[in-house]
């Protein structure tokens, strides 16, 4: 029991994921800055942002449902925390791959409900874009992940890791590589990173769903986003490159993170219909190709 609580709250659960995620967002900002010939923020920057936000007063817009407005960020955090505990557990713990896919729906849903509860027209447009984006990336994400399931014949994350330890990494095979590419783009969208940052498109929608948030709820949203920066690339690394929380794994994680940052900095934002077309067209096609290859044993 104590061990479980420790796993969940300290390592590799909440605290570890939060810390690693905050560092990852810093890395993102730093690398972005370097690519733009800038110096970039110091390493403690995300932490300072959070501390600052906690000290700010919380503003609730007039006439909104307080419970939804203030409750939404918490549910997003709960979803990502649970995932962070599941994906590193070697033994079956709480849930399997399908559970992870569904739990990963919680953070976007939290953002959507928060934005929708804000009653601001720009937030509402942002929420609708976020939802459309979810619809867009869900298909290739599912196809890519189930390509792995087809190869490993298991939906248990521990089993998938074990399979890779025995028979080589997923990404080593052609189908695994394609599936990884498709899943990577889906993760890019899940992170709301450019070119898929259209729900929060700062220049169009101010901050979209988060427009009305301030103080602690905003801090929780940012923390959730930061944890996703750790959890999602780590999830990809576990599924496609094998798991185990060792230095090698951190290297794998960093590779995935670097890919994400690079995509982010070399592309302009897409329009929502472009994103839908991209995900339902080429990216899903890529994932389907990966599946077919996997079926053929490649």
């Amino acid at each position: 029991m104590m061990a479980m609580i420790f796993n969940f709250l300290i390592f590799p659960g909440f605290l570890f994921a939060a810390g690693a995620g905050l560092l990852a967002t810093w890395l993102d900002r730093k690398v972005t800055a370097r690519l733009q010939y800038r110096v970039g923020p110091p390493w403690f920057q995300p932490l300072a942002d959070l501390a600052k936000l906690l000290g700010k007063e919380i503003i609730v817009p007039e006439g909104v449902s307080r419970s939804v407005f203030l409750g939404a960020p918490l549910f997003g955090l709960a979803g990502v925390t649970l995932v962070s505990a599941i994906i590193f557990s070697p033994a079956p713990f709480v849930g399997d791959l399908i559970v992870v896919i569904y739990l990963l729906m919680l953070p976007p849903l939290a953002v959507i409900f928060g934005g929708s509860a804000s009653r601001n027209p720009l937030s509402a447009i942002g929420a609708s874009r976020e939802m459309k984006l979810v619809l867009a990336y869900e298909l290739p994400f599912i196809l890519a992940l189930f390509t792995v399931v087809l190869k490993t014949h298991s939906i248990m994350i521990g089993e998938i890791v074990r399979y890779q330890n025995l028979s080589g990494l997923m990404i080593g095979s052609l189908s695994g590589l394609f599936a990884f590419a498709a899943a990577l783009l889906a993760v890019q969208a899940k992170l709301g990173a450019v070119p898929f940052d259209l729900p929060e498109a700062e220049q169009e929608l101010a901050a979209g769903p988060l427009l009305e948030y301030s103080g602690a709820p905003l801090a929780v949203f940012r923390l959730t986003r930061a944890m996703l920066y750790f959890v999602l690339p780590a999830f990809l690394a576990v599924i496609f490159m094998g798991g185990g929380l060792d230095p090698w794994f951190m290297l794998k994680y960093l590779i995935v993170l670097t890919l994400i940052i690079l995509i982010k900095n070399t592309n302009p934002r897409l329009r929502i219909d472009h994103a839908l077309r991209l995900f339902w067209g080429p990216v899903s096609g890529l994932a389907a190709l990966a599946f077919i290859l996997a079926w053929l044993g490649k």
Partner: protein
Amino acid sequence: MNILLWTIFLPIGASLLCFIFRRAAGGAALIVSAVGLALGAKIFLAGQLLSPLLALRAYPFSASLYLAASFLTFLIVLYSLKFMAGKERLGEYYGYILITLGAAAGAFFATDFLTLLMFWGLLGIPLYMLIGLGGDGAGGAAKKALMIVGGADALMIIGIGLVWCLTGTLRVGGALLPLEQPLTVIAFFCLLAGAFAKAGVMPLHGWIPAAAESAPAPVLALLPASLDKLLGIYLLARLCYDVFLVTPNSAVSFFLLALGSLTIMAAVLGALVQHDLKKLLAFHAVSQVGYMVVGIGTGLPLGVAGGLFHMFNNAIYKSCLFLCGGAVEFKNGTTDLSKLGGLAKTMPLTFAAFLIAAFSISGVPPLNGFVSKWLIYQSLIELSKINAAWIIWLAAAMLGSACTAASFVKITHAVFLGRSEAKAREVHWTIWLAPVTLAALCVVFGLGAYQLPLRFLIAPAVGLIGLIGVWDPLLAAGLILVSLSVGLLIYFLGNVDALKTRPIFAGGEELPAAGKVSGVDFYDTVRQIRPLALIYRAGEKRWFDFYELSAALLRWSSAWLVRLDAKIPGIIPWLRRDRAFKIKLLGALIAAELLVEGLLLVSGVREILTGLAALAMVAAAFYLAGRLGGSYANE
């Protein structure tokens, strides 16, 4: 009298009283449905019961279904007391609800195909009448429901005849037919039509959205949302495992999976772009059936368990959603999404119930909808050992789930969050009690999935099931609670005392009244994507509506019939009477159908007559439908 007979004849008898004593109808219906619930509990606890008369038999599976049906009926009657107060034709309303309950009991407990058929046919009448109660425009919807459901019933007669020819017995489960010969397959599909039309599987779904446009909310909650699903899927399950033998990787299994996936995706895509609350929910009522069909269609115990569990879950959350929609309509007088908004603050209980049910239908862990979907997904993954097509069904099911979430985001935004103009207050307790109870049940069935529903409702019917995944709802819920507290802790670490209310930020301007995003157009982008745009456009032209297609066919054929008419005026003169007469005639035919079935049952002279009656009635029904279609075309 046998307790099983009570379940049938008490409500049907009471319905007569309702027709006569209209004032007391509500109270009577409440008492009768409460008695029905008590009977249901008793039967459920008893496990096995038999009634020689009418050849009824209760066993755990049918008992649990009856329990669910009577429970929902009770809640909905309670809900109706205030909701329907002051409406016209209340006596009929409660009477038909009771007939539905009684006939459903008969259908659940029947062990004989003819008994089944009799009650099955009987169910069509209250369905027609209840939808017709909706006032203006309800007539067309009711007719549509009757045509589809009645037509499918006619096919069922053929199917039963064929089954009898093949096995020589009319007992359900008398013999297990492997689906090899063409005749068996035809029989299977004929019977399947009956189940599908009731449950609303594509392409026989057309009556549900049509009904949702006009029928009262409790009617929708009772019939298309729950009772008809229970009946249809019950029949489907029995057909697949008690009458015919559906094996994994068979052509029929493939067909069911394909049809189920198609239903999930097509209906949910339809739901995404609806702009009326009840109609949107109706599309989900169709979409959710797809999961059950997929689950049962796998041919694996895991899938059947998932499908049946999903059936119960769907009855719970779908009724809840329709009842919440009714409450919204009750207070605001409209279900047009563009006219609603901001009710979360004024109707908190309705909102909470709706939100839980919406999360449940979207498959958000740890609610019940997730668990049943999870079981179905696992069964699909099991199929991976056999056939590569599983990924298509799985992707359709999971994407359908995401689309469901999307359309509920739209509703929640448009009705409960978003901006408000309405100043509605919370509804009377009798109205919110039913949805809140059902929402609570969603949570209970989700958290205690293994301990309660799977153990008591599903396991007796399916037997033991072997999971291939892991999901520990109680632990997960506990951990979610822990992380929620962590989040709350963060709030309290922060400057939570300084909670201020400020106007909405609109670039420094005051937000103009028109600055309201109603949510109606949330998914226009999806609609405009090719090839979806083409599909949507075709859908708007009703190309996928079986009924409309047939109507078009009939319109075309009726032109020929009119010519035929002109040539044979002397032979059947009454055929040229007015339309109202023909509707009555159709009603009479259905009554005759029931009568014949009753006679057959008593006389035992089944063999020849069944086939003849079936053929005659199908021919007559088609002819009349054609004529009606003709007059429909001329309107």
